[in-house]
Structures are given as structure tokens and as C-alpha cells.
């Protein structure tokens, strides 16, 4: 299959999601279940990455800013903007593409191969609406929240590392955080987070939903979905940056 065939099938899958739920209560239950799976399930890794990402940013920025003419509070500004603009939305979403993406692709792939999706179809359930839609909706709700958390923890990690390494005091760091702050940066990060969240959930769902073969193919499609998602995230990251900044 070529690129356009995949794109066409992907768009048709997305179109197929929009149908009236057979039972709204059960769909809500599935949505909440996915929120817990995608959101709560990824909190640990997001927290760890964010803290270290901020900490390393502070140390490396300080290492490069050797001029006595530049105020130490500039380190905090650089860390803040790097974390908000790039690290929290992009890096975290790349990691989430691996964590959540492979989970979604293998879950749906396993359901396809073991005929569970066929069983749902036979019951008269629109499987795209029941299986794919809650995953995308849950990702759109939880991933931006995790990106906000990553921003906070990243900056906090930087603040802690700066103080612990004796680079700059927490007061200087806090002062730097307040300087030249552009609220649009947060808006831009959230636009990126929503865009990436959609790709992180929908691309692996496509690869999992249409898997054919056995367990080997599930593994392959899971890996492929993560690779494709990462490429799409990086590409859309560039497009958004070029268009909005």
C-alpha cells in the first residue's frame, strides 16, 4: 500500500468514528477508562522526564553562559522558554508516542487478530466509534494536562538543580522566570500539545485497527505506528513553529 492509500484509509477511519453511540453510558465508561489508562498511566514517566529535562537545561545553559555581562537570571528565562516552547510539548509527546502509541496499537491489534473487533461488529456496535473515539478523546483531554504538568515540573527541576549545583539561587531563578514572559508561549505549547495528542492516539489506532496476520504483525505495526507518529510530530512541530511564531 502506498502513502495515499494509507492516508485515505486513515481519514475514512476518522470519518467512521462519528456515529451515534449505541449506549452513551457505556461510551462514557470507556472514555473514563481510557483517561485513566492514558493519563494516570503515563504520569510517572512524564514527571521523571520533566524534572530531569529542566534540571539538565539549567546546568547546560549555565555552562554555556560564561559572560559576566549576562545576568544569572537569564538562565531561568532560557530554561523557562525552552521548557514551555519545546521540551514540555515536543519531548514529552515523543515519549508519550512510544508509551501510549505502542499500547493503543497493540491493544487494537490484539483485538483485531483475536476477532474481538469482529465480535463487536457482529453485535451491531460501530467499533470505530466505540474503540477509537474514546482513545482520541481521552488523549485530547489528558495529554495537554500532562504537558502543563511537564512545564511546571520542568521549571521546578531547573530551579532545584540551579540551587543544588550552586549556579543560581532560587530567588534569582524566580526573578528570571518573571522577566520577559510571553503568555502566547503557553498558548503555542498547548496548540502543539493538542495537535500531538491527536496524532499520538489516532495514528497508532489506525495501525492497530487495520492490522492483519498474527502476533508478529501486531509487534511490527506497533513499532511502525510509533515511528510514523514521531515523524509526524516532528514535522508538525516545524510547521506549527514556522506558522505561528
Amino acid at each position, binding site marked *: 500500500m502506498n502513502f495515499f492509500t494509507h492516508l485515505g484509509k486513515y481519514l475514512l477511519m476518522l470519518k467512521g468514528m462519528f456515529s451515534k453511540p*449505541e*449506549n452513551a453510558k*457505556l461510551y462514557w465508561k470507556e472514555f473514563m477508562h481510557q483517561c485513566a489508562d492514558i493519563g494516570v498511566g503515563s504520569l510517572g514517566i512524564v514527571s521523571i522526564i520533566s524534572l530531569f529535562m529542566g534540571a539538565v537545561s539549567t546546568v547546560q545553559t549555565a555552562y554555556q553562559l560564561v559572560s559576566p555581562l549576562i545576568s544569572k537570571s537569564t538562565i531561568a528565562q532560557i530554561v523557562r522558554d525552552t521548557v514551555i516552547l519545546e521540551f514540555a510539548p515536543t519531548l514529552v509527546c515523543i515519549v508519550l508516542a512510544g508509551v501510549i502509541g505502542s499500547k493503543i496499537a497493540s491493544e487494537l491489534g*490484539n483485538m483485531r487478530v*483475536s*476477532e*474481538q473487533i*469482529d*465480535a463487536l*461488529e*457482529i*453485535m*451491531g*456496535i*460501530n467499533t470505530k466509534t466505540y474503540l477509537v473515539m474514546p482513545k482520541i478523546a481521552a488523549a485530547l483531554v489528558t495529554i495537554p494536562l500532562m504537558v502543563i504538568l511537564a512545564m511546571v515540573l520542568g521549571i521546578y527541576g531547573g530551579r532545584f538543580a540551579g540551587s543544588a549545583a550552586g549556579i543560581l539561587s532560587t530567588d534569582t531563578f524566580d526573578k528570571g522566570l518573571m522577566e520577559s514572559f510571553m503568555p502566547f508561549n503557553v498558548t503555542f505549547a498547548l496548540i502543539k500539545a493538542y495537535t500531538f495528542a491527536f496524532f499520538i492516539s489516532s495514528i497508532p489506532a489506525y495501525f492497530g485497527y487495520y492490522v492483519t496476520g498474527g502476533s508478529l504483525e501486531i509487534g511490527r505495526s506497533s513499532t511502525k505506528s510509533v515511528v510514523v507518529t514521531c515523524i509526524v510530530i516532528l514535522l508538525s512541530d516545524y510547521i506549527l513553529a514556522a506558522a505561528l511564531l
Partner: protein
Amino acid sequence: MIEFKDLRKSFGDKVVLDGVSHVMETGKTNLIIGTSGSGKTVLQKCLVGLFEPDEGEIIYDGVNFTDMVEDERKLLRQQIGMLFQGSALFDSMTVEDNIKFPLDMFTNDNNTTKMKRVNEVLERVNLKDANKKFPAEISGGMKKRVGIARAIVLNPKYLFCDEPNSGLDPKTSMVIDKLIKELTVEFNITTVINTHDMNSVMEIGDNILYMVDGKKEWTGNSQEIIFSDNQQLNEFIFASEFLQDAKHMRMIEAKEGKKG
């Protein structure tokens, strides 16, 4: 009753169904038999709408399934139960939740009523103590019975079984066959079974469709199959010497029965 006329289905250049027509009767176990690759599974998947036939008509009790729009099909599918080859139970749900799922999705009954129905069907398939177990914790035979319980929980008019005996020992196979037969008669269901199991053919074959290379080769019941002159069918059914001997024994018994 399910009637299909001149069904054709191809995948690329490969013709899988080549103008198959037949009638699946209500209250009877309708078997589709044939060698691997003869088109049995594709035929069954066309009948339930998982595959779209290229040509032909499928008629469920006078209603043309092939002409239906998706919403109409969804309504009809609520009257269809299906037992899959690998049972297709939902891994993350307990046996009880698997069976309750169609009730949760399509009925507005309260939980007590639903649980009563779940326990009724579990009792009907002789599985009373497995409610809280997960599919991974039960045997293949039990999975099939849970699959049957889930398929009949909404009182379907049509029951499809894809190789219900695959992977089961002969004794458990007989239990499953007996159960499917009993349910078919008890609830007057149109049951369509895809099978390779010759024991099933002999025991529960009310209406048998034998397929070769996507075409209807022979039809009849379990009695008629013994006396059939169709060479391909005989080679398929009575492949081993043991089965050929069994056929001769049955023929002799039948003749003696007529004389008596």
C-alpha cells in the same frame, strides 16, 4: 431462514465465492463444510456482513440484507449471535462481564435483571461457577461455552458458529455440538455452522452445504451424506480407512433397518 443467491466474492484475481446459492433453515443446524480454502469462512463472513459480496443477495427472513444501509444492518445484527473460532472473548472482562456486555449495550434493564439473565444463560451452557474468572483462566471448552452464552444472551434469531470444535478434545466437541443443537431447537434459531469436524457432520448435520473451490458441490443431511455418490464429497468426508469402514457399517445398518 437465511437465503443467499448467486453470491460471488473475489480478493484480487482469486475467486473465493463463485455463485453460491443455498437456504439455511430455521430451527435446524445448517452446516457449511469443505476443505481449507474452499470459501466457508468467507461465505459466513459475507452472511454476517463482515465481508461485502461482489454480487448476489442475502435474505434474512424475507429482508434483503445486501440492500440495507448501515443503520438497518446494525439493528439486524442485534438479532445475530456469533461464536468465533477462538471464542473472541474480551480479555479484560470477566466471564460475567463478557456475557453482560451486549445487555449493557442494548438494553435499559437494571443490573439485577441483567445479572439474572447472565446467570440463566450461564446455567444453560453448564457454567455456573466461572462468573468471576477471566478468559485467560478458563479452558478452551469453557471459552466456547462462554462464547455461546454471550451469543445467545440477547435471544438471537440467527446463530453463527465458526469452527466451534476446533482445538477441543472429542468429548468436549460433542458437548458443544449437543449444546448448539439443543439451543437451535429450543429457541427455534437459524444456526449456521462452519466446520471441519466429521463427528459434527454426522451428529448435528440437519442441512449440509458442501463447498469446493467457492462453489456449491453438494447439499443434503447427515443421513443422505452416507449414501451420497459424490466422489469429491466421499473423499473429503471419508478420508481415512476407519471412516470408510464406519460408512459401510452405517450403510449396512440402514439397509437392515429398511428390511426390518
